[in-house]
């Protein structure tokens, strides 16, 4: 074995992966070659320095700190979907009941004033409300569609039906009755 071959094998020797035949040849060469022996001494010094370096203990609270930084990913759940539908339904209820009441009050005040300009404005607001009612009804229809196609469809469908019912009631009781009364 010659010097380049010996030096190629030093790393394997340090890792205990040198075949036995190579090991013997390497030992023979090192005994007779001061240059390779010097290289081997340096390699062994590095190996000893590294092997003697302590393994460190991580901080005691490392696990706790890691777990504190990990929050469960928000998973879409049936409960979450229900809350979403409930919130949306509630919003529609507000739109269907509170707004018309306010506008009806406004119309009544305008009708009391007997001003043609105010009456025209009131009629305009009424038309807007009808468009709003149509939009709310459309949202209800979509919820009904969701009832058929989504996992939490039962809840969504129930709210769709209730919302449509609310809109119909609003149209019948709040929007049309005042016109009849004022007519």
């Amino acid at each position, binding site marked *: 074995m010659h010097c380049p071959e010996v030096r*190629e094998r030093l790393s394997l020797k340090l890792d205990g992966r040198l075949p036995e035949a190579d090991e013997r040849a390497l030992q023979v060469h090192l005994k007779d070659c001061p240059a390779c022996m010097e290289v081997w001494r340096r390699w062994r010094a590095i190996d000893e*320095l*590294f092997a003697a370096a302590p393994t460190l203990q*991580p901080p005691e609270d*490392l*696990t706790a700190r890691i777990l504190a*930084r990990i929050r469960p990913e928000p998973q879409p759940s049936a409960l979450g979907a229900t809350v979403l539908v409930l919130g949306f339904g509630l919003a529609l209820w507000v739109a269907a009941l509170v707004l018309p009441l306010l506008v009806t009050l406004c119309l009544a005040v305008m009708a009391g004033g007997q001003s043609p300009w105010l009456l025209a404005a009131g009629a305009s607001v009424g038309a807007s409300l009808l468009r709003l009612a149509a939009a709310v009804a459309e949202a209800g229809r979509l919820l009904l569609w969701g009832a058929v196609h989504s996992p939490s469809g039962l809840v969504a469908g129930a709210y769709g039906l209730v919302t449509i019912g609310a809109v119909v009631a609003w149209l019948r009781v709040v929007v049309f009755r005042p016109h009849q009364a004022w007519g």
Partner: protein
Amino acid sequence: MDGERVLVERALSGDQDAFGALVQAYQGAVYNLAYRMLGTAAEAEEAAQETFIRVYRRLSTYDRQLKLSSWVLAIASHYCVDRLRRRRLTWLSLDSVPDAAVAVEPSEAPEAGLLQREKERELHDLLGLLPEAYRLVLVLRYWNDLSYEEMAQMLDTSESAVKSRLHRAREMLAAHLAPRRARPTSERLERSLAGHALS
């Protein structure tokens, strides 16, 4: 191994205690890898935290054919190599690491502590000489005690590439060791003690 798989499955179903047990099992290996790669306790801790957060987020992609330890250490290695590359871009070298970063047991006597500190500093400086890929194989070999096969699997390379990197890393260190060793440790220790007495 089966217990480990059970822990993985439980962690995947959201059991934080199971994930905590996995962290406990591998935090030592990850922390030591990060410490030897990055050089400071603070960075090692940050690296360990980031590694396990990535492990948690990617657990569903874990290939059961791999050893979990290899997979976790691969994530830690990528993180550390990225950190070192970014550090190089910002011109911050290992030389700027404060002395306090060197690991010494607090219970040791002052002289023994200084000697240990001196050895750690030497080790630290030597590791700092190496490119990331060479530093990584040495760290995996000495502090994580991985075989060539495990390193090859972890680094997604061949065994011969691992052997070659280890050989090259040692060769580079040996080239630097001779001038360093010309100054005996006792002399360096005396200088450290003198510096300690003055401070």
